[in-house]
Structures are given as structure tokens and as C-alpha cells.
């Protein structure tokens, strides 16, 4: 760090992620020369509660609360690990319903993300348009599970709610709606020159860095690593469908590993999810949705079980993995480890941000799809000890100004 460098702490509440996180960015002028990440703000000890207080069935609902957006994939992952440990497997129909739910979640999460990305670069009309589209899938989720957010549909050995004929019809209608609207979304995001100017060759993650830093999900795929748990590791109904990982070269034949590529990957995945849901609805096998209906019996069975299991799910943000170990006679887990996708996608921020500009921090941080809701309280401290604050609003303004400047220069 040279004597002209400033250190900017961003966070702790919170530049980009669901948990509060601190980014310490060293800048020279507007150029970023050093990045450091800290998480030590609010560790909720969810794993500890699962290991000490809750029984496994209670822990399903606890794991839903790991993340407000991925609240299908965390319980999905956890029940897979417990099923694996206890040797109790879900019926086929449950596998398909889980798949449908996980894909609905992906659609809503990716649309939410696309809206946030548009907002970060100052396109609020696109942001509102995308979020208005997202309402349709939220309504579907509410219709199928009873809730918009914490869906409470997963159960060890199956799912809690079935999909009726009426539900199938609604799902088909909803998917038709997205297929029709997709062309417009595609046009707005892929062909707009300003979005390209702000995101092309910004926040680049090379393929090698992605592999070394173990990046997961759309971040890894946008760097050209064809890694997708749905494709690689059979679970749910994905192996029956045969998912192909989406990389940006499928769209335009090239891989840059930048923010624009992450937009391409996510939006193509929305279309892909629609196809998977349509297929799963058409091929939904008949039969029960739960392996063990009686909760008391299930609880006793889990108390007697001994073993360990791994659950892996492709969450909207990437690979999610839960490790569970059960001990005979012990009601709660002996061991429970949750690894959410952002865990692996935090370190790649460092190569992405290095050499970039402060105005690019919001879009680059947002491009890995964390929550950007509280990028407040940014303090700038210079070498001589003077302090002043940059708020989220100011940083957002910088980002919007950069977009406007680029638009002016283009004309």
C-alpha cells in the first residue's frame, strides 16, 4: 500500500451479503489496489442450536431461516443429509415436487438479482419491471406452499404438501407467462448498450482463479467452469432430466468471466428452470409424498439412527452442502455443518475488485448475488487520520453517475 492509498472500510452492515460483512478496500484515487474481507459481525450459531437444542424435525425449519431467499435449498440439503444418515429415502413423487420447488426458487431468486443489478447501475425502470415479473412466481409459490417466503414444505423422507391437478394447471400457466416475457427480459439485459458498458470486462474472475478459489454456481459458470450440482451429482429429479450446466459461451461463443457473463448465465438459467418445471409437471410420478407420515415414529426412528450423510443442492447462488451426523440415543445432531454458496464466493471478490473503481464495487459485489440491502455506514479514513463517511446512497449515486457519463460519451 503506497502513501497515496486510502483505506475504505465498507460495512459491517452490510455491503453485499445476507450476513453483515466488512470489506476493507485500499484505493489510490479511484483505483482499487487492495481488498480484505471480514465476516465477524453476527454469527447466529444455527449449527450449534441444531447440535444442542433442536430435534432434527425442528432443525428443518431452523435451516429454512439460514437464508431468506434460499429457503428451499437449505432444508432440501439438510433433509437429504439426514435421509442419507438414517437410510430413509423419499418417494419418487417427493423428489419431483422438491425439484419443482427448487426451480421456482431459482426463478424468483435470479429475477430478484437481475432487478438488484439493474438498480445498482441506475436503471430503476428495469428494476421495477423485473420485480413486477417476479410477483407471478411468488404467487405460484404461495399457492403451492401457503407461504411466500419460508415455504415449510420439506420434511425428512418427503414433502409436506402435494401438487394437485389444479396446481399443475397453474404451474403450466405460470411457466407459459415466463416463456412469453423472456424475450423482453433478454432484449433489455443482453442488448442494451449501457448495461454492456457498465458490466463488460468489469469484475473479471479468470477460470483459473475460479477453480483455485473454489467458486461455485453462476459465478464459476460465468468464468467458464461447467460446474453445476444439478448436472454433476444426482439428486431430486435432475438426473432423470439430464441438466446441462449453462456457461456464457452457449449464448455468444465467448467467455469473459465478467459481470455481463454472470447476467447471461443467470437469465439463461431462468429459462432453463422454466423448462425443467414444465418437464417435471408433465412427468410427475404418482404415489405418496412422504416415506413416514407419522411424525412421532419419524422422530423415534431418527433418535435410533446412527450414521452420517452429505446433502448437496444447487442453490440459486451455487453449491450448497450440509453434513449431518446422527448418534444413537441423541435427539439432536451430533454434528451439523452448513456451507452456503456465498461462503465460497466471497474470496473471489478479491481478484474481481482489484484494479477496478469504487463506482464498480456495488455492481461487482452484487454480481456474485449477495443481498445489497444494507450497504450503509461506509467510512473513509485517510492516512492522516481525517475521517468522513460515504453512505450507501452516495456510493449508489457514484454508480449512477458513471452510467450517465458512459451514456453521454457513447452518443
Amino acid at each position, binding site marked *: 500500500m503506497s502513501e497515496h492509498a486510502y483505506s475504505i472500510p465498507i460495512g459491517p452492515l452490510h455491503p453485499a451479503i445476507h450476513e453483515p460483512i466488512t470489506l476493507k478496500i485500499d484505493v489510490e484515487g479511484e483505483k482499487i489496489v487492495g481488498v480484505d474481507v471480514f465476516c*465477524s459481525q453476527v454469527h447466529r450459531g444455527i449449527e450449534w442450536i441444531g447440535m444442542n437444542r433442536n430435534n432434527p424435525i425442528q432443525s428443518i425449519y431452523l435451516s429454512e431461516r439460514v437464508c431468506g431467499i434460499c429457503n428451499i435449498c437449505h432444508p432440501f440439503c439438510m433433509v437429504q443429509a439426514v435421509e442419507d444418515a438414517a437410510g430413509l429415502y423419499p418417494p419418487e413423487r417427493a423428489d419431483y415436487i422438491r425439484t419443482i420447488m427448487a426451480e421456482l426458487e431459482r426463478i424468483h431468486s435470479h429475477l430478484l438479482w437481475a432487478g438488484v443489478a439493474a438498480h445498482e447501475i441506475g436503471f430503476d425502470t428495469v428494476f421495477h419491471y423485473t420485480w413486477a415479473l417476479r410477483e407471478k412466481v411468488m404467487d405460484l409459490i404461495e399457492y403451492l406452499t401457503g407461504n411466500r417466503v419460508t415455504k415449510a414444505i420439506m420434511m425428512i423422507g418427503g414433502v409436506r404438501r402435494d401438487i394437485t391437478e389444479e396446481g399443475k394447471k397453474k404451474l403450466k400457466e405460470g411457466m407459459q407467462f415466463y416463456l412469453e416475457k423472456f424475450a423482453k427480459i433478454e432484449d433489455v439485459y443482453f442488448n442494451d448498450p449501457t448495461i454492456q458498458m457498465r458490466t463488460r470486462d468489469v469484475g473479471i474472475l479468470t477460470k483459473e482463479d475460479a477453480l483455485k*478459489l473454489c467458486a461455485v454456481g453462476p459465478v464459476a459458470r460465468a468464468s467458464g467452469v461447467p*460446474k453445476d450440482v444439478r448436472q*454433476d*451429482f444426482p439428486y431430486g429429479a435432475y438426473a*432423470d432430466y*439430464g441438466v446441462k450446466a449453462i456457461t456464457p459461451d452457449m449464448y455468444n461463443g465467448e467467455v469473459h468471466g465478467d459481470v455481463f457473463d454472470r447476467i447471461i448465465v443467470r437469465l439463461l438459467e431462468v429459462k432453463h428452470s422454466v423448462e425443467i418445471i414444465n418437464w417435471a409437471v408433465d412427468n410427475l410420478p404418482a404415489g405418496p409424498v412422504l416415506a413416514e407420515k407419522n411424525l412421532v415414529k419419524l422422530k423415534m426412528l431418527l433418535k435410533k439412527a446412527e450414521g452420517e*450423510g452429505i446433502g448437496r443442492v444447487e442453490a440459486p447462488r451455487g453449491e450448497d452442502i450440509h*453434513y449431518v451426523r446422527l448418534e444413537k440415543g441423541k435427539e439432536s445432531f451430533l454434528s451439523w*455443518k452448513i456451507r452456503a454458496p456465498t461462503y465460497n464466493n466471497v474470496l473471489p471478490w478479491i481478484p474481481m475488485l482489484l484494479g477496478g473503481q469504487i463506482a464498480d464495487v456495488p455492481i461487482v459485489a452484487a454480481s456474485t448475488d449477495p443481498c445489497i440491502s444494507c450497504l450503509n455506514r461506509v467510512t473513509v479514513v485517510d492516512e492522516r487520520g481525517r475521517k468522513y463517511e460515504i453512505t450507501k446512497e452516495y456510493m449508489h449515486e457514484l454508480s449512477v453517475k458513471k452510467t450517465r457519463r458512459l451514456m453521454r460519451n457513447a452518443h
Partner: protein
Amino acid sequence: MNMEEIINGIKQRFECEVQVKEIPCGVKKIKRTSIFVDLKREDFRRFMDYLFEIQEYPHFAIISATDLGENMELLYHFTIDYGKQNEEKTISLRIKLPKSDLRIETITDLIPGAMISEREIHEMVGIEFIGLKDTRHFFLPENWPEGKYPWRRDETFPEDMLNKLYETWKEDDNHE
């Protein structure tokens, strides 16, 4: 590389127990494979070299830790053969460390992406990673007391820091 080759390769080179789990899913009952390897601490780095032989960049998922009373058990979860349809396998390396000597070599020189996980295990259960350059707290606050480990089941667990809501309520509390 198929399953038998991997398992034979492991058994030839290392004195260890290998356990394979295959779980079918969906209608076609295609199986997913998890491999658990019980390894000695001395063989750990050698096993990492072997892992790099069978996969150019083995994907590191997470380290999980379990307190078994006398020992701490670490499980390093890796995946190999990713990017191939239904071929990916998880390999979990199980290493038991006695509580009197909780030390193991770092893998951050081979896999930089393991840094956060090693720092987490370091602060949560007190394992020392030999060669890990950055040992600051990542999830716990900076002023966390030394020698207290929240994921342990022994005297180093910070019992006095537990927030017991039911204890804060007393009979004669005025709730008006």
C-alpha cells in the same frame, strides 16, 4: 476415472478404511456416490498430492468438525469429476486429532479457497493449522476471549456466554 480405480488407488497407497455410499434418486434411480476415507494425520499431505493427481483442481467444499470427547474429528469434503454428467463424487477425508495435540497442516498453499474454512475451524474448535498465514477471526468478533471454542463439547465451551431467555424472567417481575 471410475470408482474402482479410485478406491484401489487409495487402498494401494494408504493404510486406511474406505467407505462408499451410493444413493439412488428419482425415477431412473441414478446413483450419487460419496466416498469416506479414514486417514492418519501423517498421510494427509500425501493424500492431497494423490487428490491432485486424479483431478487437476479438486473442488474443496468445507471442513466439518465433530467433538468426540477424547478426539476431535475433522472431515475435509472434496469433490472430484465435476463438470461431467452424473459423474461427480464427494471424497470426505476423516482425520482424528487427539485433544492434546490439535494440529494439522494447512492446505491453503494448494487450495487458496480453503482459507475461510480453516480460519473458521481454527476459531470454532481451536485446531491449529500449521502454515496458515492468516489466523484472524472470521466469523467471531475480534474481542472473542481466547481459549473458548463454541463448537466444542468440553470445558472450553463458553457456557457463561449462553443467553438463556427463560432465566431472565422472574416470578415477581412486573409485566404491567
